[in-house]
C-alpha cells in the first residue's frame, strides 16, 4: 500500500483545505476566529498558537510514519532498544515537558482576561435568566425586562449575571467572550465589553431539552446615548392601544390565556412562564431568533408555534377566529 506518499498528500490537502475553510469562517458572525473584544481576541490568539504548534507536532509524527514506510524493506536493529529509547524519551517525555510548560504559562496569562469582572468594577449590570427556550433579560435598578435581545452600550464594561429559571443553559456569544453556564442555585458572571457597535449573535450551548437548537440571542451594542434612550423606553409600561383593532387585541390577550404566561407591564397580564411582551414590537425577532418579528410571522407563530419550534411551551391558537388573531398581532406589534 502507498501509505507514505498518498497518505502524505492526503493529509497536506486536508490541512490546506482546513486552513482555507477556517479562514473563510472568519467572516461568520458566530465564529470563534472572528473576535470583537479583547477576551475573545486573546482566545483566538491562543487558538492560532496552539493550531500552529499542533500542526508541527502532527507533521513530525507523520514524518516518522513515512520513514517507517520508506524503510520497510530494510532489516532493523534486530531489537536493540538504545536508539528507539532516545527518540521515545526525547519525543514522549522531554519535548512535551517543554511544549506543555510554555502552553500552561500562556493559558494562565489568558485566564484573567476571560474571568468574571471583580464585583463593583462595572457601571452596568445585566441579569440574563435562561428559560426553556428563551432568554429573559433584566436591567437591575430599572423596570426594563426584555427577551432574547440584550442591549448594551459600547466601550462600557458590563457585568453579565447568568442564572437559570429551570434546567442548565449556557450563555455564549463567541465574538464577545467565552461561554458561561447557567446552573440552578448558582450565579455566574462574565464581562461584556464591546468596543464597536453592532449586533453579535449567540446561542445556548448546553443541551437543555427539545428546543436547545432554537434558543438564540443577540447582543445589540449601541452608542451609550442610544442605549440610554433604549433603556428609558424599555423601562416604561406598555403603550395603550389606539385603534379599535388594537383595543380588541388587548382584550383578547387578557382573556384568551395569553396573560397566564406573559407579562405586559401596565396591564393585568403578569404571567412569568413566557417572555415579557411589554415592548415586544420593538424586537427584531420572536421565539428566540426563530422567526423575524413581522406581523405575518407573528400571526403564523400564534396560530401554530409547534410548526416553527416543535416542543415550544406555547400552545397554538388556531381555534381563535383569524380576525381575532389579527387583532392580537396588531396589538402586540403596537407595543414598541
Amino acid at each position, binding site marked *: *500500500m502507498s*501509505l507514505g506518499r498518498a*497518505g502524505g498528500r492526503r*493529509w497536506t490537502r*486536508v490541512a490546506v483545505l482546513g486552513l482555507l475553510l*477556517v479562514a473563510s*469562517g472568519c467572516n*461568520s*458572525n*458566530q465564529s*470563534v476566529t472572528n473576535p470583537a473584544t479583547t477576551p475573545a481576541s486573546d*482566545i483566538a490568539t*491562543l*487558538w492560532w498558537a*496552539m*493550531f500552529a504548534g*499542533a500542526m508541527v507536532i502532527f507533521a513530525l509524527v507523520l514524518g*516518522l*510514519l513515512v520513514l*517507517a*514506510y520508506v524503510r*520497510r524493506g530494510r532489516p*532493523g536493529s534486530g531489537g536493540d*532498544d538504545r536508539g*528507539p*529509547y532516545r*527518540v*521515545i524519551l526525547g*519525543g*514522549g*517525555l522531554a*519535548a*512535551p515537558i517543554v511544549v*506543555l510548560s510554555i502552553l500552561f504559562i*500562556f*493559558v494562565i496569562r*489568558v*485566564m484573567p482576561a476571560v474571568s468574571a469582572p471583580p464585583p463593583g468594577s462595572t457601571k452596568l449590570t445585566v441579569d440574563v435568566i435562561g428559560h*426553556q427556550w428563551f432568554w429573559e433579560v433584566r436591567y437591575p435598578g430599572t423596570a426594563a425586562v426584555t427577551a432574547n435581545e440584550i442591549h448594551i452600550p459600547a466601550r462600557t464594561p458590563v457585568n453579565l449575571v447568568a442564572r437559570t429559571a429551570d434546567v*442548565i443553559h*449556557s450563555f455564549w456569544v*463567541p465574538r464577545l467572550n*467565552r*461561554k458561561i453556564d447557567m*446552573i*440552578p*442555585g448558582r450565579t455566574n*458572571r462574565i464581562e461584556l465589553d464591546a468596543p464597536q457597535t453592532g449586533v453579535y449573535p449567540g446561542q*445556548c*450551548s*448546553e*443541551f*437543555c431539552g*427539545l*428546543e*436547545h*437548537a432554537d434558543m*438564540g440571542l443577540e447582543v445589540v451594542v449601541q452608542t451609550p446615548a442610544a442605549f440610554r434612550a433604549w433603556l428609558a423606553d424599555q423601562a416604561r409600561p406598555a403603550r395603550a392601544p389606539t385603534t379599535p383593532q388594537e383595543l380588541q387585541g388587548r382584550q383578547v390577550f387578557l382573556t384568551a390565556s395569553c396573560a397566564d404566561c406573559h407579562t405586559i407591564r401596565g396591564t393585568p397580564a403578569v404571567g412569568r412562564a413566557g417572555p415579557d411582551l411589554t415592548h415586544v414590537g420593538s424586537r427584531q425577532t420572536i421565539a428566540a*431568533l426563530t422567526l423575524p418579528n413581522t406581523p405575518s410571522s407573528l400571526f403564523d407563530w400564534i396560530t401554530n408555534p409547534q410548526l416553527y419550534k416543535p*416542543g415550544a411551551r406555547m400552545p397554538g391558537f388556531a381555534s381563535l377566529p383569524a380576525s381575532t388573531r389579527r387583532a392580537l398581532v396588531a396589538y402586540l406589534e403596537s407595543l414598541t
Partner: protein
Amino acid sequence: MTAIQPPAPAAQERIERLDRIWAERPGFTGWLTTTDHKRIGLMYVAASLVFFALGGAEALIMRTQLAGPGRHVVGPSTYDQLLTMHGITMIFLFVIPLSIGGFGNYLVPLMIGSRDMAFPRMNALSFWLFLGSGILLYASLLLHEAPNAGWFNYVPLASRRFDPGPNIDFYTLALILNGVSSTAAAANFLVTIAKLRAPGMSLNRIPLFCFAILATSFSLVFALPALTADLVFLELDRKLGFHFFDAARGGDPLLWQDLFWIFGHPEVYIIVLPAFGIATSIIPTFTRRKMAAFPLVALAELLVAFIGFGVWVHHMFATGLPQTTLIFFAAASLIIVIPSGIQIFAWCMTLVDGTPEFKTPLLFIVGFIIFFVFGGLSGITLAAVPFDQQVTDTYYVVAHFHYVIWGAAVFPVLGGLYYWFPKVTGRMYHERLGQATFWLIFAGTNITFFPMHISGMLGMPRRVWTYPARMGWGPENLASTIGAFILASGLVLLAANLVVSRFRGAPASADPFGGGTLEWSTSSPPPAYNFAVIPVVTSAYPCWDADDRAADARRLAAGQLVLEHGHETTTTTPVDGHLDDVLAMPAESIWPVTLAAVCTVGLALVISSHYVTALVSVAVAAAVLAAWHAVEPRSAA
C-alpha cells in the same frame, strides 16, 4: 514458529482425554450455559457488533437530519432519543463490551497460557447482565421512551420535573445493570491476570495487551462506583422524591456532573487502553520486532489509567468553578499527554526500527496512530482553559472525541478483528479487500469528522437537532453527512469480508502471521482447554521461543502440566509467576443466564413502577443464587 507437531500416541491419548473433560453441551443450550471464555468472548463480540450496527444506524439518521439547515427527517423528540442512544450504545454496548468483553475474554487466557478465566461462571453472568442492559435500553427505544437527556444525562434536565416519562429510568437502571456486569468482568480480569498466568510469566513478561486490560480493569473497578452512586442518587430523586440534585432544597446539580465525570473521564481511558493493547499486539507481529521500550510502555499504560482519575473537571470548565480549581485540572490534563506521548513514540519507533509489512491489521494501527495524535492534539487545545470555555459543547468537541474514540479506540479494534480472525475461525480473511476497506474507512472517518472542527469553530453547538440557514454551517455539515455514508459503506465491506471469509476463506494455520504471544502457539481455532499442556515461558514473546515450545510438546508426551484428570488449570505467584497450585474450574451452568434474566425482568418491573412484583423477582433471584451454589462443579470425567 508453530508448535503443532503430529502428536505421539501417548500425547494423542491425553488430548482425547482433555477433549472429553472440557466438552460442553452441544447446540443452542450450550451457548446459554457455557463458561468457556472463548465462547463468552464470541457472544460479546456478536452482541456488541449488533449494538454497533444499531448505534451506527442512529448516527446515520442524525447525519441525514443535519445534512442541511432546517431539515425535518426527524423531530426534536426523536432526535434527542437517537442522540442519547447513540452515545450510550457506542460506549456501554459497543466499545467496552467489544474490546474488554470480546477481545479481553477471548484473548487474555490464551495470551497468559491459562485454560479459562478465574471465575468462569461470573464471566458468563457478566455477559448476560450486559445483554440484559442492552435489551432494556433498546426496549425503551421500541417504546419511543428511550433516554433523551444525552449520554451525560445532566440534571435537572433528567429530573422527574423536566423528564417525567420512563425514559431516564431506563437509562439509570440499565446502566446500573451494565455497571455490575463491567465490575464483575474487571474483577475477573484482575484475578485472572494476577493468578492464572503460565509458569514463568513474571510481571515483566505479561503481554502488553494484558497489561492494558489490567490497567483498564483497575480503572473500571475504581471509576464505576462513582457512576453507580450517581445513578442511585438520581433514581432516589426521581422515584422517591429525594433532593440530591435539587438546588431549591439544598441539593446541587453540579454533584451529578462531578460524579459523572469522575467516572466519565477514566472511562475515556477505559475505552482507549484496550485499543493501545491491541496496537502493541499487532505492531510487533507485523514488524518482526518486539515492542520498543517494552517496560516504559507497560508503565505508561498504567500511568494513563492512574492520571485519568485526576482530570475530570476539564469537562466542567464553563460551570463557573474557581480559577485555582481550573488551573489544577488544566495542569493534570496536560500532564496526561506525557504517558500517551511515550506510547505514540514507542509505536512509531517500533515501526521505524522493525521491518513493517503493511497488511490490513497494521494499516488500521497506522490509521489509529494518525487519529490518536490528531485527536490528542485537539485534546490538548481543550485543556487550555480559555479556549475550552469558548468551544466546549460545540462540534469542535464532537470532532475531537470522535477522532479519539472512533479513530483511536475503534480502529485498533477493527484491525484486531482482522488480526485474530484466523485464530478464531481457522480461516483467512481477504487481504486485498481488507486493505481497500481500510482506505475507505480511513477516508470516511476524515470526511465525517474533520469538518466538525470547523463547524464548531464557526459557533455550531452540540446536541442541536437542526440549525438555521443564516448560520452558514451547511457545507461542513453536508461534508460530514457524506463522510458518514462513506464510512458506513466501508464498515459494510468489512463485515462482508469477514462473513464470507468465515465460510469461504483459505484455511489458516495456527500462526499465520508469525505472532509472538501464546495464542498463536495453539491451533486455530483453539480447543476448549486452549493448550494441551500448560506452556512454560521465558520471555515476553514466548511464541518466538521455538525451543520452549518444543519443550512444551515433550512435556505433553511425558504428561507434565497436562492436568488431564480434571477440569483444571494452574495458578502462579502474582509477581514472579512461579507455579503454586492447580485450580479446579467450575463447569458449565444454567444459573448465570437465569440470574441475569431475573435481574433484567426485575429492573423492567421497577421502571414500570410494579414494585411488589419487583420484590418477587428479588426472591426469585435469591433462589437462583442458592441453586447456583448448591450444585458443585462437575467432577472429572
